């Protein structure tokens, strides 16, 4: 199979029964996509498939042959945060952080479709992503803040980081944003 992952073409020979989640983690070493419930419930394995957020534990890698996948590694990194990641940090939208990659990927799709969601729309969009420790209040606030940051533009987001005394983290341009 051949698939574009985070902008890079990957070619692999795999067993047909390999789930996309396993392929990303075990074959490509992209362990930012988390292995949670594996029963299509929790959403921490969420990735973008041709721009749409899907649960990578419930699709075979063979099904994405010839398509484009974006994982959390393609969104940003610790030194180069995406505004969504920055917003989750600023608003404490996580406690243990296990669900966060999935939350960020779902938020990514939501804000692409709807750059100015209200709280209700955020809650509906996140209904397939479970958090078992901090609850959803700060997560929802983070998403709303991310929308605000994105509207203000990348520059302001960097300044918000600086104000906290952190090293500057210029948010990356998001492909197709």
């Amino acid at each position, binding site marked *: 199979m051949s698939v574009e992952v985070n902008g890079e073409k990957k070619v692999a020979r795999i*067993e047909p*029964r390999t789930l996309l989640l396993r392929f990303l983690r075990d074959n490509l070493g992209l362990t930012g996509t988390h292995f949670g419930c594996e029963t*299509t419930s929790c959403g921490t394995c969420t990735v973008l498939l041709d721009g749409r957020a899907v649960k990578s534990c*419930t*699709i075979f890698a063979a099904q994405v042959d010839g398509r484009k996948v974006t994982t959390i590694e393609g969104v940003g990194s610790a030194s180069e945060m995406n505004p969504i990641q920055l917003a989750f940090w600023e608003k404490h939208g996580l406690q243990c952080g296990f669900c966060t990659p999935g939350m960020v990927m779902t938020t990514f799709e939501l804000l692409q479709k709807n750059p100015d969601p209200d709280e209700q729309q955020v809650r509906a969009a996140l*209904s397939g992503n479970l958090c078992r420790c901090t609850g959803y209040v700060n997560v929802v606030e983070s998403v709303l803040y991310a929308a605000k940051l994105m509207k203000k533009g990348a520059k302001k987001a960097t300044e918000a980081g600086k104000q906290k005394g952190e090293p500057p983290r210029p948010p990356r341009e998001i492909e197709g944003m």
Partner: protein
Amino acid sequence: MNPRPFEYHSPRTVDEALALADRYGPDGKFLAGGQSLIPLMKLRIASPAHLIDLGRIAQLSYIRADRENIAIGAMTRLDEVSNSGLVAEECPALAQCAIQIADPLVRNLSTIGGNIAHADPSNDMPAVMVATGAQLVATSSRGRRSIPASDFFVDTFTTALRQGELLTEVRIPAGRCRLSAYIKLERQAGDFGVVGVAAVLELASDGTCSSCGVALSGVGPKVLKAKRAEGLIVGNRPDEGTLGKAGRAAAEDCDPVGDLRGSADYKRRMSQVITIRALRAAAKEAERI
């Protein structure tokens, strides 16, 4: 939780998919969006030797209207169904149903055809198909036939599709489903419903109901067509008295099983309540038009 090994096939056209189905017979299984089948394969409840992925057959993904029908390709994703202006206008029940299935991530993969052909009695789409009097188009290498939704659902996980047949299209009667609603009682977001009710009404010029479809999901071995409830409504105005009688009839006719989502008695009572609400919502659509 890995499925048993299988051979993967990726046809590009319906004809190719049907040829593969003929070649592998009962060892072959069609894969639509995979949101029901893949979990069953991971649990090894389903272990097809040959998986025929329909995901690359572009010709099965569309929503269009002609004079008689709203025609929806079986591989149209639920997020597309729930976002379709045409569906929202012509059949509110279908749009409301689609957006209440599972969660947005699952709806980005799951398809209308898969939700129907899987025939899980708790799936939502079958109720809308039965209540609207939809026709389900089955295609095989020998030709195609149209199956009325009320004959399509035979038993739990069992449909009228024969070996080698593929559900290719859903046809909702145009202009006849505008007064419709789907209401689902959920224990938690994204779960199967305790009960879901699809209701469709047509009103005559004097305000009485000229036709009515009511179907319930989750309260029997297969989707329940509430024939007595329908009969109580036809010929009458959809006032609270009539809807109350219909709700009682639907509750009497359903056959729920107690589980984590509630006792059989609770589900029966909720069937009454949700049937009334669905009929009320369908009648209310008349104000919109």
